C-alpha cells in the first residue's frame, strides 16, 4: 500500500519531466510550443505493432519442405490424385490465403539474382583546382574531412585518384550534395568556392552478386529446385499457390495442338529474361507487379490486377493452368531441371500396355506417344539438318544480343531513376530550371539532391542496361534456337511417357491407366482381369 502511494506521486512527475524535456529539446523547430498541461495528463499511447516474427518464418520454410515431401510421395509413391488435390487445396489455403502469396519461389528469383549497383567516384578536378589556386591534395583533404561527418560515405583507399567512393543510394546522393555545397577558402582574399565545383563525380555501374539475401528467401528459392531435381515438378503439382488456384478451376480443359503448346511455352523464358533484367538493373520486380493472383489471395488490390486475375481464372477453366505453362518464370527454370530428375512420376505403375487410354487424360499436353511406328528420315539427311540447326544456335544468339543492344536505350526508361533523370532533364532543357511541373520533378525540386548527381546516376543506370539488355535478349534467342534443335532431334520412345519438362505430376493420368486400375483392385484383394497382363 505504501509503495503504491509512492508510485502515485512519482509517475505524474516523471511523465511531466519527460514531456517537458522532449518539448524543450524540440522547441527550436516548432511553430507552436507544446503547452504545459496539468500533471495528471498522460499523452495518448501510440502502439508500434511488430512485423512477422522470426519464428513464424522458420514455420513457413518448414511447411514448404513438408509440402514438397508429401507432394512427392503422393505423386510418385502412392500415385494418389485425390491426395494431390487435398494437398493443393491446403497449399492454396496456407501459401495463398493465409500467407497472401508472399514469400513465393517465383518472386524469389528476383531477390537472388545479381544486381548492378552504382558507385560514385569523386576525383579532384585538376583544371578547376588550378583556376582557384588550390592543390589537388588540399581538395582531397577537405572532401575526406567532411565525408567523415556522414555515415553513408566511405573514403576508400582502393583507388589512387579518387578521394571518395561510395555506393549510391537515396542517402548517399544527398550526402554528396551536402558536401558539395560546403565551401573552401582559396589562398588570398578570393571568395570561398563550393567543394562540389572542385571535383568531378563519375558514377559507374558495378555488377555485384546478391548481398544479404535473407535465408528465408534463399530457402524458398532453392528447396523446390532440389525437389524437382529429385522427383520432377511436384512443387507445381501441389505446393505452389498460383498453380493451386488454377488447378482448382481447370474444369473443362481442351488440348492444344503440340506446335502451339511448344510455341506459347517459350513466353515463359521471355518473361524470365525480362524479370531478371529489371531486377538486375534495380528497375523493379516485374513478376510481383504482374502477379495475376496475388490480389485474389489478399482479397484486395488494384482493380486492373483483380480483373486480370479473374480473366486468367476464366481462361483457366478451358485452358488448364495458362500461367504455369506459358508465363511462369520459375517453371521455365524447373523445366530443364525436371528433365534431369532422379525419379519422376510415371503414367503407369508397371509396364505400358499401349492401350492409348491416357492420351486424352493430360490437359497440359505432357504425354508423349510412342514413336516406333513409321520410318525415320534417312540418316544422312537427319545429320545435315542437325548440323545446320547447330550452326543456327550461335547465329541466332548473336542476332538476339544485337537486337537487345539496339533496344537497350528504350528498355532503360522502365527504370525509375532513368525516368526521373529524363523528366528533370527535359524540364531543364525547356525552362532552364526544375520547376516541378510533374509530381516527379516537384518531389525532386523539393529534395536536396543536386541535379548533376541525378543525371550522372541516370547515365550510370543506362550503362548497366547497355550491358544487361543484350545478355537478356541473347538468352531468349538461345532458348528459341535450342528449342528448334530439340524438336529436330528424334528420340526413340517405346511407351506412353510423360514429357519430364512439361509434366506437372498432377496425377490425372493415373486414373485412366488400366494397369494402375488393376493394381488397385489387386491391392483391395480382387482378381484383375487376366487379359491385362497378356501383352507383357
Amino acid at each position, binding site marked *: 500500500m505504501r509503495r503504491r502511494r509512492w508510485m502515485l506521486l512519482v509517475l505524474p512527475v516523471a511523465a511531466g519531466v*519527460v*514531456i517537458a524535456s*522532449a518539448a524543450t529539446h*524540440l522547441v527550436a523547430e*516548432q511553430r*507552436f*510550443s*507544446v*503547452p504545459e*498541461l*496539468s500533471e495528471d*495528463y498522460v*499523452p*495518448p499511447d*501510440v502502439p*508500434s*505493432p*511488430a*512485423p512477422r516474427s522470426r519464428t513464424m518464418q522458420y514455420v513457413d520454410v518448414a511447411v514448404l519442405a513438408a509440402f514438397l515431401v508429401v507432394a512427392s510421395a503422393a505423386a510418385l509413391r502412392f500415385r494418389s490424385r485425390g491426395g494431390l488435390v487435398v494437398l493443393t487445396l491446403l497449399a492454396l489455403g496456407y501459401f495463398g490465403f493465409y500467407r*497472401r502469396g*508472399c514469400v513465393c519461389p517465383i*518472386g524469389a528469383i528476383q531477390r537472388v539474382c545479381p544486381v548492378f*549497383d*552504382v558507385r560514385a567516384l569523386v576525383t579532384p578536378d585538376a583544371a578547376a583546382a588550378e583556376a582557384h589556386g588550390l592543390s589537388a591534395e588540399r581538395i582531397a583533404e577537405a572532401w575526406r574531412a567532411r565525408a567523415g561527418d556522414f555515415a553513408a560515405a566511405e573514403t576508400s583507399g582502393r583507388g589512387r585518384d579518387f578521394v571518395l567512393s561510395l555506393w*549510391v*543510394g*537515396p542517402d548517399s546522393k544527398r550526402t554528396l550534395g551536402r558536401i558539395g555545397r560546403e565551401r573552401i577558402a582559396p589562398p588570398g582574399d578570393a571568395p570561398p568556392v563550393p567543394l562540389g565545383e572542385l571535383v568531378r563525380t563519375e558514377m559507374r555501374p558495378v555488377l*555485384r*552478386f*546478391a*548481398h*544479404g*539475401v*535473407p*535465408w*528465408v528467401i*534463399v530457402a524458398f528459392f*532453392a528447396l523446390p*529446385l532440389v525437389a524437382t*531435381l529429385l522427383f520432377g515438378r511436384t512443387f507445381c503439382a501441389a505446393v505452389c499457390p498460383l498453380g493451386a488456384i488454377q488447378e482448382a478451376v481447370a474444369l473443362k480443359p481442351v488440348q492444344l495442338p503440340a506446335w502451339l503448346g511448344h510455341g506459347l511455352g517459350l513466353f515463359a523464358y521471355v518473361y524470365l529474361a525480362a524479370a531478371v533484367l529489371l531486377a538486375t538493373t*534495380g528497375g523493379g*520486380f516485374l513478376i*510481383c*507487379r504482374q502477379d495475376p493472383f496475388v*490480389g485474389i489471395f*489478399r482479397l*484486395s*488490390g488494384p482493380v486492373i490486377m483483380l480483373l486480370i486475375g479473374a480473366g486468367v481464372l476464366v481462361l483457366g477453366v478451358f485452358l488448364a493452368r495458362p500461367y504455369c505453362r506459358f508465363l511462369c518464370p520459375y517453371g521455365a527454370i524447373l523445366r530443364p*531441371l525436371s*528433365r*534431369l*530428375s*532422379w525419379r519422376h512420376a510415371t503414367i503407369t505403375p508397371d*509396364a505400358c500396355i499401349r492401350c492409348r487410354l491416357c492420351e486424352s487424360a493430360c490437359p497440359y499436353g505432357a504425354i508423349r506417344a510412342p514413336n516406333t511406328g513409321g520410318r525415320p528420315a534417312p540418316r544422312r539427311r537427319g545429320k545435315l539438318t542437325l548440323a545446320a540447326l547447330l550452326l543456327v544456335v550461335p547465329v541466332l544468339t548473336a542476332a538476339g544480343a544485337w537486337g537487345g543492344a539496339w533496344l537497350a536505350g528504350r528498355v532503360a526508361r522502365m527504370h525509375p531513376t532513368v525516368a526521373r533523370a529524363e523528366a528533370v532533364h527535359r524540364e531543364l532543357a525547356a525552362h532552364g530550371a526544375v520547376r516541378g511541373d510533374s*509530381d516527379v520533378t*516537384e*518531389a*525532386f525540386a523539393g529534395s536536396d539532391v543536386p541535379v548533376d548527381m541525378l543525371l550522372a546516376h541516370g547515365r550510370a543506370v543506362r550503362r548497366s542496361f547497355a550491358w544487361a539488355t543484350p545478355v537478356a535478349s541473347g538468352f531468349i534467342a538461345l532458348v528459341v534456337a535450342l528449342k528448334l534443335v530439340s524438336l529436330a532431334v528424334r528420340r526413340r520412345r*517405346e511407351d506412353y*511417357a510423360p514429357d519430364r519438362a512439361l509434366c506437372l505430376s498432377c496425377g490425372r493420368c493415373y486414373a485412366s491407366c488400366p494397369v494402375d486400375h488393376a493394381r488397385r483392385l489387386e491391392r483391395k484383394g480382387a482378381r484383375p482381369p487376366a487379359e491385362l497382363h497378356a501383352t507383357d
Partner: protein
Amino acid sequence: MSPHDADSANGLTRRDVLRGGCIAGLGAAAGWLLTRDSATGGPAAMRAGAAGGERRVWQIDPSACVQCGRCATECVLEPSAVKCVHAYALCGRCDFCFGYYESRPGSHAGAGAEYQLCPTGAIERRHIEGQHYDYLIDEATCIGCARCVEGCNTFGNGSLYLQVRHDRCLNCNECAIAKACPSQAFRLVPAGTPYLPKGADA
C-alpha cells in the same frame, strides 16, 4: 523398362552427372549467398535486407515524405498499410489544428464533418483543458492519404506523419508504394526497429 533405366544398370548416365552437378552447384550457390556479409553491401544490401543477421522491413522516412497521397492508392492492400501516426511530444494541442480543420476562410465555424480535412473522419478531437485539444488517430479508419500530414506540416508543428504499420504490411519483395513514391521516402529498415519515429515520442 525405360531406356534410362537400361543405361543406369551399366553405371552413370549423362543425366546422373548433370543432376549431380546441378545439386552441387545449387548447394554451393545457396551457401555462398547465405554467408555473404551484408555489412559490405551497398544499395543492393539496403534493398534486400541483411543476411542471416537482421531481416529488413519497409518504412517511410518522414523527413523525405512529400505527402503526395500515393500511400493511400498504391498499396497492394485496401485500405493501405500506411497510416497516420501522431508524435504527441511535438503536438502543440492547438484549438485550431491545421491537420484537423480545412484551412480555408470560415472553416472554423463549426465542428461538423464538412470542416474536417480527413476524408474518412479518422481523427478524434478530444478536449484536454483550457484551449488545448488532443487529436487521436483511429487507425482502423485512416487510409493513409496524408491530407492531415500535409496540413500539419505546412502550418503546424509537423507532429502528424505517415508510417508503414507492421501489423498490416506484407513486406512485399518490392513495395508498390515505394515504387511509386516520387521522393524515394521508402527504405528498408531493420526488423528490430521497424519504425522511423518523429520527435522523442517513440
